[in-house]
C-alpha cells in the first residue's frame, strides 16, 4: 500500500502534538506557552481533519464523494450539545434560552436520555450511522452513484438545514444551542477543558488514521478500491457491492459524527450553519487539496486550508473566497491528486535528475 512513509510521519507529528498540547497549554515548559485560543484552534482543526478523513474514506477509498457529511457532523454535534445542555441544567437549573423562547417550561421529557454521557456517546456512534444506513441503502440499492449521489447527499443536508432552521423543530432554530456549563466536570471555556478537548480530538485523529490505514490495507480496503475502479466488474465477480459500500458509508458517517461531537464543545455553540451545503463542499475541497485515498492527504488538506482560513479571514476577509477558489482550481487542474502529488512529482523529478542516488521504491503488495 502506497504512502506508508507519510502515514508514519503524520502519526509521529500527531503524537508530538498530543504530547505538546498539555505541556504548552498549561505552560509546563519554561518560556513556552500556548494561549488558550491557540489550543482551541488546534482542537477545532483536528476535528476538521477527522471530518476530512471521514470523507476521504469514502471518496479516496470507494470513489464515492459525499457532499453531505455536514449532516453527520452536525448530528454528532447536536447530540453532544443536548447532553451538555442537560448537564448545564442539572448544575444551574436554568433553562436554555431557546426553550424559554419557544414558551416551554422545561425540556421535552425524552431529552432525559441525554443525561447520561455513555448513552450520549452510544447515540453518537449509532444514530448517525443508522441515518447513513437508511439513506445509503435506498441510494446504493438503486445504483445511484457518481455525481448523482454527490448531489443527492447535498440535497439531504440542505433539507436538514432548512428543517433545523425552524424554531419548532425544537433544537434552537437558527440561533442554535449554546450556554454549556461544564465539559467532563471542567468549566466550559476554561483552559483545562480546551486542552482536554484538543488532546481528545488529536487522539481521535491519530486513532482514525491508524485504524483507517489498517482498514484500507485490508481486503475490505482493496474491495473498496475495486469499487472505485470498476464497480460493475466487482459485481460480476459475485460481490454484492451494496453491503461493502454501506459498511464504509456508515463507518464514515460515524467518524464524522465523532468529529462533530468533539467540535461543538470547543466552539461552545451549535447551529444549522454546520448543515450549510457550503461546509460539506469545503470538506471535499480539503480532501481534494490534500490528496485523496491515503487519509494523510485529508489531514494535510484540512489543516492547511483551515489554518489559512483562520488567518486570512481575520487579515483580509474579502480576499479569502478568492484565495480558496483559486486554490481549488489550481489543485484540480494542475495537481489531480492534491498536494500529495507534489511530493510524487518532485520525487519523479529527482529520480530523473539522479536516477542512481535514490532507491527506487518497490510497490508493496
Amino acid at each position, binding site marked *: 500500500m502506497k504512502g506508508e512513509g507519510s502515514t508514519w510521519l503524520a502519526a509521529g507529528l500527531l503524537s508530538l502534538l498530543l504530547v505538546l498540547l498539555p505541556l504548552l497549554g498549561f505552560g509546563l515548559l519554561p518560556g513556552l506557552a500556548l494561549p488558550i485560543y491557540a489550543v482551541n484552534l488546534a482542537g477545532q482543526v483536528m476535528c476538521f481533519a477527522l471530518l476530512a478523513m471521514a470523507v476521504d474514506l469514502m471518496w479516496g477509498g470507494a470513489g464515492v464523494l459525499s457532499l453531505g457529511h455536514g449532516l453527520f457532523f452536525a448530528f454528532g454535534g447536536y447530540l453532544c450539545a443536548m447532553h451538555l445542555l442537560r448537564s448545564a441544567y442539572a448544575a444551574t437549573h436554568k433553562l436554555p434560552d431557546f426553550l424559554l423562547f419557544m414558551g416551554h417550561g422545561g425540556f421535552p421529557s425524552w431529552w432525559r436520555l441525554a443525561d447520561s454521557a455513555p448513552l450520549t456517546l452510544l447515540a453518537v456512534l449509532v444514530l448517525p450511522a443508522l441515518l447513513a444506513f437508511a439513506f445509503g441503502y435506498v441510494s446504493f440499492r438503486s445504483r445511484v452513484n457518481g*455525481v448523482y449521489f454527490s448531489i443527492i447527499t447535498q440535497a439531504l443536508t440542505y433539507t436538514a438545514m432548512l428543517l433545523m432552521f425552524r424554531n419548532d423543530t425544537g433544537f434552537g432554530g437558527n440561533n442554535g444551542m449554546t450556554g454549556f456549563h461544564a465539559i467532563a466536570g471542567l468549566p466550559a471555556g476554561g483552559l483545562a477543558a480546551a486542552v482536554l478537548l484538543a488532546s481528545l480530538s488529536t487522539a481521535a485523529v491519530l486513532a482514525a488514521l491508524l485504524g483507517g490505514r489498517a482498514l484500507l490495507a485490508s481486503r475490505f480496503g482493496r474491495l473498496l478500491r475495486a469499487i472505485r475502479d470498476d464497480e460493475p466488474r466487482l459485481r460480476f465477480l459475485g460481490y454484492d457491492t451494496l453491503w461493502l459500500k454501506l459498511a464504509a458509508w456508515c463507518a464514515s458517517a460515524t467518524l464524522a459524527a465523532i468529529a462533530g461531537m468533539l467540535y461543538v464543545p470547543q466552539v461552545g455553540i451549535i447551529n444549522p450553519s454546520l448543515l450549510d451545503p457550503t461546509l460539506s463542499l469545503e470538506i471535499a475541497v480539503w480532501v481534494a487539496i490534500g490528496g485523496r485515498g491515503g487519509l494523510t492527504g485529508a489531514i494535510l488538506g484540512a489543516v492547511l486550508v483551515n489554518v489559512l482560513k483562520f488567518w486570512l479571514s481575520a487579515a483580509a476577509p474579502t480576499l479569502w473566497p478568492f484565495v480558496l477558489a483559486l486554490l481549488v*482550481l489550481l489543485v484540480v487542474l494542475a495537481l489531480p491528486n492534491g498536494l500529495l502529488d507534489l511530493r510524487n512529482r518532485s520525487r519523479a523529478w529527482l529520480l530523473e535528475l539522479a536516477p542512481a542516488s535514490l532507491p527506487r521504491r518497490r510497490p508493496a503488495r
Partner: protein
Amino acid sequence: MIGGAAASLRICRLGLVIWGALMCLVLSGGRADAAAYDRARLIGQLCSAEASDVLHGLNGMLAEAPGGSLADGRWALGVAQAFSAKALRCGPDGHGFLALPSGEVDAVSLAPAAAPADSRAPLPSLRARRVLEQVDAALRVFVAAKAADRLDAVRTLARHSEGVPANLAQTALAGEHDPEVARALRAWLVEAGLHAPDVAARLAAIAALGGDARAQTANQLMSLRADPAYAADPRVAAALDAAIAHVRFWLRIGDALSLLYNGLSAGSVLFMSAAGLAIIFGLMGVINLAQGEFIMIGAYVTFSVQQTLGAFAPSWIAWYPLVAVPVVFLLTGAVGVVVEVAVIRHLYRRPLMTLLATWAISLLLINLVRVTFGTQNLQFRTPPYLTGGVRVVGDFLVTWNHLFAIGFALLAFAATQALLRLTDLGLFIRAVTQNRAMAGCVGVSTRRIDMAAFGFGAGLAGLGGLALSPIYNVNPTMGTGFIIDSFMVVVLGGVGSLFGTALAALGIGLVNVGIEPFYGAVAAKVIALLMIILLIQWRPEGLIPALGRR
C-alpha cells in the same frame, strides 16, 4: 404603536390635502354662485360653544355633500379640513376666520381679514372628529381631483357609513369617470344594500355579491348568516345559501388555478435553470454547480442593460427586458464558454473533480459580483407592463411578471427544442450525448460541441436570470438556491430529453408550490426530496429515460 403610526401618517396626509384644497378654495373663491349653503350659519354653528350645535353643523355638511355645487363642495371641504387642523379661528361674535399659509381670511367671504386677538381655535370633540372625517371623505368623493383621493374617500365612507346620506353613492356614481372608483362605489352600494330594510334591495345585493367571487365577498356573505333578519325570511336565506355556494365554488376554482399558475411560474424558472444543466450533464456527465451563478449573471447583465438605457436612451428604458435578451444570452454564454475552455474541458474524465471546480467558479463569480456591485438587492425599474395583473376568477390573479417568466420559458423551450432538432449543432449534441466515442469517430469535433453546448446552457441560464429579475430579489447569492432544485429536476427528468426536463421542472415547481401553503416551505422541500428518492428506486433513469448506450 401601529395605530399611532397610522394616525400620524393620516395627519401628515391631511395636512397636504388641506393645503391643496385651500389653494383651490382661494382660486375659486371669487366666483360666487347661487349659495345653496348658508355659509355664515354654518360657520356660526361650528364656532358655537355648544357641542350639539357643532354636531348639528357637521351633520348638515354631511347631508348637503351630494347636493352642493362644486364651488360649495370645495369651500366646505376647506372649512372642514381647517376645522380638523385647528386652523378655524372663531371671533367672540361668532365670526369665523381661516388661517391659511398665505395669511388669514374671512371664513365666509374668503376675503383677507385678520382674526381678532381674542379669537379662539376650537378643538373638535371626539364625536365631532368622527363626523368630520366622514364629512371630509364625503366631500372629497365629489371634489377631489385625483382618482386615488376619491378612492380613498369612498373606502373611508364604506367603512363608516352610518349617517351618510343614502343617495351619496348613487349620486357620486353618476358623475364618476374613473373605473376603479366606480367599482368601489358599486361595492359600497352592494354592501349598503345588504343591510337595507327593503327585502328586494337585499336580494339584489346578495345576487350582486354572489356574482363576484372573492374571499372578501365570501366573508361578507358568511357574516350575514348571523344577521337575524336573514333567519326570518326564507327567501333571503335561500338566496344567501345559493350565493355562498356559488362564491365558494368559484373561489375554489380560482384557488386551484392560482396554485397551477404559481406552480407553472415556479416550474418555468426551474426549467430555465435546469435545461442547460441537463444538456450539459447529458453531454459531458458534468454537473455544473455554477449554473445558479449564470442565472445571477444574467440578472446582473439585465440590470446593466437597464442602467445603460437609462443613461443613453431614457425613452427606451421601459423596453429593457426585451433589449436585454440578446445581450444577456451572448454575455452569459461567453462566460460559459470561457469557463468551459479554461476549466471544464480539462476535467471531462473526472466528473467529481468537476463538481469542486465548478463550485470554485461559483464562489469566484459570486465574490467578483459582490466586489463590483455590492451585496444589496438590485433596484429594478420594473416596466409598467410587467407590474400588476388581471383578475380572472375568484382570487386568481394573472400577474404580468409571472406570465412573463412563463412565456419566456416557453420560448426558451421552443428555441432549445428547435436547436436540438433542426440545426447541425443540435444533431451533433444529440450524437455526442448518445455515444461520444462513436461521434468522435465519425468526425464530429466533440470539443467544439462541448464548448458550444456549455455556452448555450450558460446563456439559457442567463435568460432565466432575466426572466426572474421582476420576480425575485437580485443579489450576488441569488443563484445558490437554484442548484439543488435544478439538479433534482435533472434527476427526475433524466438526461438527454428536454421534454423530460420540462415535465420534471413543472412537477417539482407544482409540488413546491402545492405543498407550501399547507405544510410550509421546508416540508415542501422534504417531500420533494423524498419523492425523488422514491422515484429513483423505481426508475433509476428518470421519468423519460434517454436512449443510447451508457
